[in-house]
């Protein structure tokens, strides 16, 4: 074969798909063998009136004043959850939305009933570079597995999104660490710690649990209201 034919043949081989080449590789299967099976639909247990069942965030003096004012005004304002049709992170983890948590080697994808998605990349990537980041509803999440526990590290959240209907908020610099695991066949647990020194006197830690739902279908449930809602501030 001439060199040209050889390189053309090699290119052709590379471009076409040998029968087995697209199947999950032995390496991917080995990774899957180390991962848990969280298949199912989950829903939070307990009250969704506040994100932390024990009460509001441990605000510092300045933020406590800010919060008291926001809480007083909250009944006449449109909750940001409704205004932007998004609970965001960390509020999602204490919201009524049911979810699937699909675990693969590259990523754990949490998909919620009102079309909110958490991509927790476990491919060894660091956080996105700072110049590509901006405050986002679901932040920028990376994850690591240690045995059966997924540790999630999230930055770049949208601090002004309400954490609950009382209008509690954080700053965009909040850093959220979670440890998620299945405690038994019917329960997931998320131990959440929020670090936000500009707003809080100390790390804010609490735990939420989720029960396996009898529901089997994730039914698409988008918000039904239309454009223009983003500009509405009051109810």
């Amino acid at each position, binding site marked *: 074969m001439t060199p040209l034919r050889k390189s053309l043949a090699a290119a052709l081989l590379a471009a076409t798909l040998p029968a087995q080449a697209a*199947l999950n590789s032995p390496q991917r299967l080995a990774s899957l063998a180390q991962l848990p099976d969280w298949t199912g639909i989950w829903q939070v247990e307990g009250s969704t009136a506040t994100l932390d069942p024990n009460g509001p965030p441990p605000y510092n003096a300045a933020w406590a004043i800010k919060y008291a004012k926001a809480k007083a005004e909250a009944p006449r304002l449109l909750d940001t959850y409704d205004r932007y049709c998004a609970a965001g992170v960390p509020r999602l983890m204490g919201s009524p939305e049911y979810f699937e948590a699909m675990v*693969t080697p590259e990523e754990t994808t949490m998909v919620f009933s009102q079309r909110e998605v958490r991509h927790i990349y476990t491919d060894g990537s660091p956080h996105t570079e700072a110049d590509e980041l901006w405050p986002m509803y679901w932040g920028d999440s990376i994850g690591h597995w240690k045995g059966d526990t997924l540790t999630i590290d999230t930055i770049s959240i949208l601090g002004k999104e309400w954490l609950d209907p009382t209008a509690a908020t954080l700053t965009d610099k909040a850093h959220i660490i979670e440890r998620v695991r299945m405690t038994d066949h019917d329960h997931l647990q998320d131990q959440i710690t929020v670090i936000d020194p500009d707003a809080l006197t100390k790390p804010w830690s609490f735990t939420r649990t989720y029960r396996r739902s009898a529901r089997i279908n994730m039914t698409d449930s988008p918000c039904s209201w239309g454009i223009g809602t983003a500009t509405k501030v009051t109810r």
Partner: protein
Amino acid sequence: MRRPIAPLVALAVLFGASAHAQTNSPARLAAFAKLPDWSGIWEMGRPGPGQVFQAPKAGKLTGGPGRDLNLPYKPAWEARYDARQKEYAALPDTLTPPDPTITVCSWGFPRMELGPANFEFTITPEETMIVFDPSEIRHIYTDGRPHPPNPTPTPQGHSIGHWEGQTLVADTVGLDPDLWLTASGAQLSPKADITERWSMQDQNHISDQVTIVDPIAFTKPLTFTRKFRRVTDTKHQIMQNCFENDREQMKGGYIETIYSDPSEGSSQ
């Protein structure tokens, strides 16, 4: 009496193991071994010249990736479609047609595949999930379940599927008829039944052969193939929230865009 220690210990170990042995079972791994790896990010590819979603000339479906579809409408549906094109063509320059992707931030299936989105597959034995970055999510259940008897219509419908080798064959019913199939406002009836065959051509190309059967709107089935390529400059999806849109408002049933800087409420 001697206590049966060994079986008790064995039971304890077994019970302890099953409560905390969280890893995928051999059966599940065997099922994964038969599935393809389509991990990564995929997209339709950037529209080329003339491929942007243009409002078509009255009467014909032109412009945009949907322009090659040639929908086999029955006469009444064709007439309705033509009337809509005339209505949109007559709009003043300040208004655009009430596209549901803007009015209710919803693309639905199969329109999202005709749109400028990227997507990720998550393939497990129980389900193939497809996540599109405009926050549209499809769940194609492959665990043998049937469709629910009377599914409430939703933008994605209800999807079930099975694998034929490395081809995913899916069936979707229960689609919301108020959504648009194309940017020009073509629609389907509530009875639309859509089958797909997803397959990988090579490491950088995946395709979806779509067949729409709609006994109410169409004279015959419509089949077309959407082709997608791998995204190589990005490893991670960033989800979009269309509801933060403060630039588009409804005006008399159509969309008006605001070009001046909109003012925000003071407390937000």
